[in-house]
């Protein structure tokens, strides 16, 4: 192999980014597809949040849909009932979900593994119940209509679907970059250390509690940001935007894409969403097909699509450079493998 700095990962990232940038141009005014893309991009931002807490620290937060819903409703209610502008509302959504994540993390993170998952599932459900029942503030099931578009700058008019799409895309790229930077840095190493063994992490001076709390807060912040954007994209929002189903959908996106990877969330989100749209023609029967597909995916592709590509590239590379030892590089792709390959016959 040559000594060029060619990196398949970088190429892959570039390709995905390019595809997303150019997608609207190839649609020829198909606003429905643009809508699916835009909505998908908002979900993907939230999924990056889930990636931070789940992919890097190994904690499965099932309150994610709930925090997304908080973002949705803060922007939804502030821009309608209180007549705020969009941007300050979004800021409030981000700050509230960040603080909310940090504070609730104090209690939530006392629990571990399955307990954490179920604790956060309950939290998510309580958020949903509050949103869907607190009639006087959230209008419960009536939902919120007439959510404002973001105020434009100069020529940018966000009521144009395509402009809105690029706005969401900008945030999405930001989310992906933050994930990348965090993973590459000592912070990423800290989080992965916590995921692998909390006791050991503690013994080398990592403040496990605080770091998990920060990671949790970061993840809820992403969810809140995504929710705020989602509200503007939809115009009308109801309590289903905070439902537990949404959390599981996001989890599905991330598993299909590849847990802990930089591209996984965006790839997984778009693939699954388009799968969902595609199977819409089967109406109620689509779950007869989708259910088994989901099961098959986690059984046969536990590392997700991007996880596989990474492993594949890794293999090619180590074959190319001879022994895999001594590369001394950062943990980039090793740590993304969550599948345990224990071949015991038990």
């Amino acid at each position, binding site marked *: 192999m040559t000594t060029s700095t060619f990196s398949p990962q970088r190429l892959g990232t570039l390709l995905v980014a390019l595809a997303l940038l150019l997608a609207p141009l190839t649609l020829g005014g198909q606003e429905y597809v643009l809508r699916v893309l835009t909505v998908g991009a908002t979900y993907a931002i939230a999924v990056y949040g889930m990636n931070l807490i789940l992919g890097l620290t190994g904690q499965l937060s099932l309150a994610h849909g709930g925090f997304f819903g908080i973002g949705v409703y803060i922007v939804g209610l502030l821009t309608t009932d209180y007549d705020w502008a969009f941007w300050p509302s979004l800021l409030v959504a981000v700050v509230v979900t960040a603080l909310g994540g940090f504070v609730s993390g104090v209690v939530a993170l006392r629990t571990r593994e399955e307990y954490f998952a179920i604790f956060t599932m309950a939290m998510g459900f309580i958020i949903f119940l509050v949103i869907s029942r607190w009639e006087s503030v959230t209008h419960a099931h009536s939902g919120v209509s007439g959510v404002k578009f973001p105020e434009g700058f100069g020529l940018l008019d966000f009521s144009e679907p395509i402009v809105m799409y690029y706005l969401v895309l900008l945030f999405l790229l930001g989310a992906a970059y933050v994930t990348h930077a965090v993973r590459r840095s000592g912070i990423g190493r800290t989080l*992965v250390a916590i995921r692998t*063994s909390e006791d050991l992490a503690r013994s*080398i001076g990592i403040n*496990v509690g605080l770091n998990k709390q920060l990671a949790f807060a970061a993840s809820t912040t992403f969810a809140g940001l995504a929710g705020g954007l989602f509200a503007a994209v939809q115009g009308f929002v109801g309590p289903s935007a905070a439902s537990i189903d949404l959390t599981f959908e996001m989890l599905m996106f991330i598993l299909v894409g590849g847990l802990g990877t930089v591209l996984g969330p965006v790839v997984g989100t778009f693939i699954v969403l388009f799968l969902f749209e595609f199977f819409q023609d089967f109406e109620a029967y689509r779950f007869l097909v989708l259910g088994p597909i989901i099961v098959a995916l986690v059984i046969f592709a536990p590392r997700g699509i991007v996880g596989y590509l990474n492993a594949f590239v890794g293999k090619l590379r180590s074959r190319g450079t001879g022994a895999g030892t001594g590369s001394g590089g950062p943990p980039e792709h090793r740590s993304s*493998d969550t599948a345990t390959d224990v071949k015991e016959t038990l």
Partner: protein
Amino acid sequence: MTLLEVRGLGKHFSGLHAVDDVDLDISAGRITAIIGPNGAGKSTLFNLLAGFYRPTSGTVRFKDRDITGMSPHRTVAHGIARTFQTTNLFEDATVLDNVLSGRVVRSHSTVFDAVLRTPRHRREERLNLDKAMAALEFTGISEYRGEIASSVPQEVQKRVSIALALATEPELLLLDEPAAGLTEEETGGFAQLIRDIVADGVTVGLVEHRMSMVMSLADHILVLDHGKEIAAGTPETVRTDPQVIEAYLGADHQEQEGAG
């Protein structure tokens, strides 16, 4: 100089006195060993010193500062590192990444540095890499740096866990049964490594059942049984203490040692 001073330390687990009113002084630059039967409270004592457990009574002072009940991430920052009785590594990361994780406590760059790739961040990453490599060289395992931790031999894994502890730049290193499961030959290598560590200016606390190692290395020995001190002193005094022989070494121990 006394680096660590323990007074009246106790830890109860629902009625069980795992550690009971223990006093201990660890002098700087020396090796202090703690021995005793299984369940005597040795590991618990280490857990108390490193902040993993909160004591139910007593005090721990380190470098004249009270660190009683301080959480592990702070004791490590103050300079106490430890290894575990069962080797514990970040199993799916490389050896080098394992040791790099030990640098976290000495790093100061934040998420924002990482996202913005500030010069401080880059400088620190370079420094961390150097220090980690130094720790690998020191423990003699730098050739394994690119391998996945769980796939290297046990002995190397044990060395990795020591390198990881050293990467946190400790002043006091607590080793919990570093030689468990090693052959005699390998044990010799570990004894040498521990001597090197001390020579490098790090004080060592050692829990070990391998008497050949303890007796040849330790400057001072504390013997625990049922959480209580039953003897303390130099290897010679401890070895011949009838209480220690009865509770721990066994009558035919002398004879076995003699044969070796």
